[in-house]
């Protein structure tokens, strides 16, 4: 009870301090909460819309159709569960309008009732139903997306040639619940009747086409159970059985990268808050040592004192979390408006109970992990030491271990990646160690060197005075440098990666091709080369592609990996995807210019037929499927087993946009297998690209062409939007940092009022007092900037080595800009805080 009474009195008597303390916590929590809400909203929206995205209760789809035997078993199983059934074939193909314009399209061949769940609306027809799809199948009509209408300059009644068939535009799609993303797809969508699939002649052997079967269930809750049954019938991992739950995986993966990265920024915002409250609390508690000493001397136990502060911290933590939730509720709608730019969806502007609980817990945990270790150390001191004002204690690092473990867990959770979360945590740890281990050593030696020397040395009175303050107020210097350098590290990482990514996408040693051709049939290769020669098209040698699936690793059968329930890291998810999907194989004599040997040896030559064939794997693919040099892999190519030994791993520059493969065999193994070809048209000017594209579409209607220049522009636009979102969050992070800096400076200058009065008495003019303060904090800020920028560059370099194939560009414009902006913000903070105190006369400065 005494602890409760003391806690109440503490809050009542010092409410101003606790309000400021709370404000520090709130700014960090706000940044973190917004990220949580962003994620939660997407997850919520996805689960609501996943049935519509899947367009049915359950679906079977893959790049090959299920076999007759499998189909029989599937239909027999489903007959007692299903209410509706339909089929869909979708593929990429070139479309050509009457006006000679040609572009890549995503063509969906539909029949029966589609979608089984959700809705498609056409401007001229209204909501799509079975009857309207029948009409689409009876005549060569096409429904086009607004993007297609815009690109081809089409309107209702215009003609659009897809494959060998000339389709007439019957309407423009207004709503399509089966579409999820804006700006992320490779090509815009069109719908045509499945009856015309054969006539288009687009589907031949090896064509990249997806065949799906959709079922609506009498009881949709049985979907998961049925999925298991269907997977027993269809054992090939290359064919997916999907329920609404995993329909949204693809989408959440794309958005996931953005939100995972933002999540880490949220963690930094929270961490900076923690540094701020740590500083404020320790400085407050040291002023109240006598109070604690008196309580102890009056017989209040250590337990009760600890409980008293724990109660205060708990109450403040809960109130801060509550205030954060109210603010988030008020500002959430604004943020969600921005998200709609990325993602078509109805966002829930309300707070979920899960987020509310997380925020409440975080407010509490951050407070307790940050403040309790300070009190525990003090309570171990003797009462007499507490009563004297000379007490000096060192923090007990062990007491902060739970907080560090919590931070690591939070980072892995927010990054959804063990590697990225750990790299992030280690980077913070390195910053922490540099600041707490190396910096004190440097400061100590500076302080020692200054002893016995005039204050005006080195470099005049301002610098000499400031250097003495910095090197002797070590604790404050460390805390300031720590909070600033952590924030700067993160912001630098973002800026550095931004340039490296752009560099990777826009330039490389050799120029990027202009056009990327796929679905070239084996028998078309000769004709295509001849055609290119005659029409002066710079076509590179076509590369073969053989469809296969991995069935054994070192003799052991590869089984389908199901998605784990609950939290999964990105690494686990990637491994599952890579193990499950069908694969494309190729063959080549050796490496192409965009490849580099990482480990092992080059192919020995053409396969002699004796022993195992040789295979080369892309470095990260090998890691993901857990294979190393010397391991054997067995692939099934149209029922034939091909066994090979891994002889090397390669690094591939994927953004070269050359035909590259994860798996490349030595020559002499796959030549006789059925295959298609990929090819590139080397760099030419944009006008000529469009001309060649039209020429190729005219001659080879089944060949699909990706315009690389347009694709790169599209990716860069998307990246720009993502970088903007990250930039906004980083800015929030800087704002939190500046607020913490302001709090610390405010507190510092409050403590310095006495010294300021003394300086005035000693004859310092206002200009000099400000000058000393400015030099003191400028130096601190510069040290933090150097550490933060260096660490940020190191982290960005490491990340680029792991994730960007080693492309790293030092973004000096960003670094210089960031350093100048942050420095000016610091100066502004000092000027504002200083002005408040300097206007007081000496007596009032001394009396505080």
């Amino acid at each position, binding site marked *: 009870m005494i602890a409760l009474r003391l806690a109440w009195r503490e809050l009542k008597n010092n409410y101003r301090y606790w309000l400021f303390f709370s404000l520090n916590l709130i700014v960090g929590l706000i940044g973190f909460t917004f990220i949580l809400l962003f994620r939660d909203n997407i997850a919520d929206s996805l689960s609501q819309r996943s049935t519509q995205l899947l367009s049915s209760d359950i679906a079977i789809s893959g790049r090959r159709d299920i076999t007759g035997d499998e189909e029989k078993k599937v239909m027999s199983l489903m007959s007692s569960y299903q209410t509706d059934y339909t089929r869909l074939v979708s593929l990429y193909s070139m479309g050509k309008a009457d006006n000679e314009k040609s572009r890549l399209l995503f063509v969906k061949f539909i029949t029966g009732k589609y979608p089984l769940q959700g809705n498609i609306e056409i401007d001229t027809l209204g909501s799509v139903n079975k009857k309207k799809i029948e009409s689409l199948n009876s005549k060569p009509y096409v429904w086009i997306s607004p993007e297609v209408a815009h690109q081809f300059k089409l309107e209702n009644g215009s003609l659009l040639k897809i494959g060998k068939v000339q389709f007439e535009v019957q309407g423009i799609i207004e709503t399509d619940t089966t579409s999820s993303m804006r700006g992320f797809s490779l090509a815009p969508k069109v719908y045509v009747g499945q009856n015309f699939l054969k006539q288009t002649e687009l589907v031949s052997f090896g064509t990249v086409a997806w065949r799906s079967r959709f079922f609506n269930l009498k009881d949709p809750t049985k979907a998961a159970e049925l999925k298991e049954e269907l997977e027993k019938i269809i054992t090939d991992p290359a064919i997916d059985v999907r329920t609404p739950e995993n329909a949204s995986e693809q989408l959440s993966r794309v958005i996931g990268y953005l939100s995972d990265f933002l999540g880490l920024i949220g963690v930094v915002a929270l961490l900076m808050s923690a540094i701020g409250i740590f500083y404020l609390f320790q400085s407050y508690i040291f002023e109240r040592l006598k109070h604690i000493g008196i309580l102890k001397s009056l017989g209040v136990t250590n337990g009760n004192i600890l409980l008293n502060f724990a109660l205060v911290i708990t109450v403040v933590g809960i109130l801060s979390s509550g205030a954060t939730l109210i603010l988030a509720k008020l500002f959430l709608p604004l943020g969600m408006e921005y998200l709609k730019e990325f993602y078509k969806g109805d966002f829930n502007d309300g707070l979920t109970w899960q987020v509310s609980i997380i925020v409440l817990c975080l407010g509490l945990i951050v407070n307790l992990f940050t403040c309790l270790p300070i009190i525990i150390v003090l309570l171990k001191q003797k009462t007499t030491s507490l009563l004297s004002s000379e007490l000096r204690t060192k923090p007990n690092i062990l007491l902060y271990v739970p907080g560090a473990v919590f931070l690591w867990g939070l980072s892995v959770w927010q990054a959804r990646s063990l590697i990225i979360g750990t790299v992030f945590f280690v980077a913070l740890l390195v910053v922490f160690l540099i600041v707490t281990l190396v910096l004190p050593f440097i400061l100590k030696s500076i302080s020692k060197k200054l002893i016995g020397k005039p204050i005006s040395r080195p470099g005049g009175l301002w610098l000499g005075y400031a250097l*003495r303050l910095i090197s002797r107020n070590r604790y404050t210097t460390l805390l300031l440098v720590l909070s600033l350098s952590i924030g700067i590290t993160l912001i630098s990482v973002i800026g550095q990666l931004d340039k490296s990514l752009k560099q990777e996408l826009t330039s490389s040693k050799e120029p990027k091709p202009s056009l990327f051709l796929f679905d070239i049939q084996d028998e078309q290769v000769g004709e295509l080369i001849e055609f290119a020669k005659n029409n002066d098209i710079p076509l590179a040698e076509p590369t073969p592609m053989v469809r296969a699936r991995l069935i054994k690793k070192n003799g052991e059968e590869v089984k389908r990996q199901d998605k784990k329930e609950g939290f999964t890291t990105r690494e686990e998810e990637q491994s599952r995807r890579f193990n499950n999907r069908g694969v494309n194989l190729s063959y080549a004599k050796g490496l192409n210019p965009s490849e580099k040997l990482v480990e092992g040896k080059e192919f020995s030559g053409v396969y002699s037929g004796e022993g195992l064939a040789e295979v080369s794997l892309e470095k990260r693919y090998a890691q993901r499927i857990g294979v190393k040099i010397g391991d054997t892999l067995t692939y099934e190519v149209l029922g034939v087993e091909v066994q090979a030994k891994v002889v090397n791993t390669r690094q591939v520059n994927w953004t070269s946009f050359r035909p590259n493969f994860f798996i490349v065999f030595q020559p002499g193994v796959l030549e006789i297998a059925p295959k298609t070809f990929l090819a590139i048209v080397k760099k030419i000017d944009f006008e000529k690209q469009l001309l060649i594209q039209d020429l190729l579409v005219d001659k080879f209607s089944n060949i699909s062409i990706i315009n690389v220049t347009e694709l790169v522009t599209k990716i860069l636009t998307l990246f720009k939007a993502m970088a903007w979102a990250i930039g906004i969050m980083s800015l929030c992070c800087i704002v939190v940092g500046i607020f913490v800096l302001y709090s610390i400076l405010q507190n510092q200058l409050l403590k310095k009022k006495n010294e300021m009065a003394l300086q005035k*008495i000693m004859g310092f003019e206002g200009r000099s007092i400000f000058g000393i303060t400015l030099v003191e904090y400028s130096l601190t800020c510069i040290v933090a900037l150097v550490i933060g920028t260096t660490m940020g560059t190191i982290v960005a370099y490491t990340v680029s080595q792991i994730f960007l194939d080693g492309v790293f560009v030092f973004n000096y414009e960003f670094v210089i800009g960031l350093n100048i902006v942050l420095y000016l913000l610091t100066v502004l903070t000092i000027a504002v805080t200083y002005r408040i105190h300097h206007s007081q006369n000496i007596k009032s400065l001394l009396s505080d």
Partner: protein
Amino acid sequence: MIQFKNVSKIYQQGSKKIEVLKDMNFELEGKGLIAIVGKSGSGKSTFLSLLGGLDDPTTGEVVIDNTSISNLDESALTKFRAQNIGIIFQHFHLVETFSALENVMLPLEVMGDKDPIGKAKEVLKLVGLSEREDHFPNQLSGGEKQRVAIARAYVTNPKIILADEPSGNLDPETGEKVMQTLFQTAKELNQTLILVTHDQDLAAKCDKIYELKDHHLELQ
């Protein structure tokens, strides 16, 4: 010469006005040790603050050697104070991050003195702290801290030294020693020491004693 011309000082405490000094007129000429005594709350410290230019009178003016310090701007007042006045506080008020030597050197360096180390060391020797010059305030005892403060006040050789209860925070024995140092240094350097105290015994050791009573100073 020190002059207080019709000086009043009123403090505002919430809605209440507290008049500490009222139309005070006071003149002091010549050098020596001067004690200002008076009851607690009589306005001794306020008198000293006004004399040191640490606070402004509500009305009237404070004149030192024909310079009205009440009418000086911030910059001129700072310069005047640095050249003419040394102040010693009850709570020492040392710069915690500076060593004893640096604390004493500080006013000399502000004034642009060419030999701050030599002069500071000399005064520290005078107050008996040569051995402790590289120690920081947290490494010094209360008495030692006050002796550093005395050295700092004397080092620029100001015309007037103002001391506000300099032994108030020390035990009697240390207080006695500190006061001896204070009086001795003032005499050796031929300076005017104005000492605010409530200790009559200590005041008795000064050349003149003034009592602050009913807002006015009276020579005893």
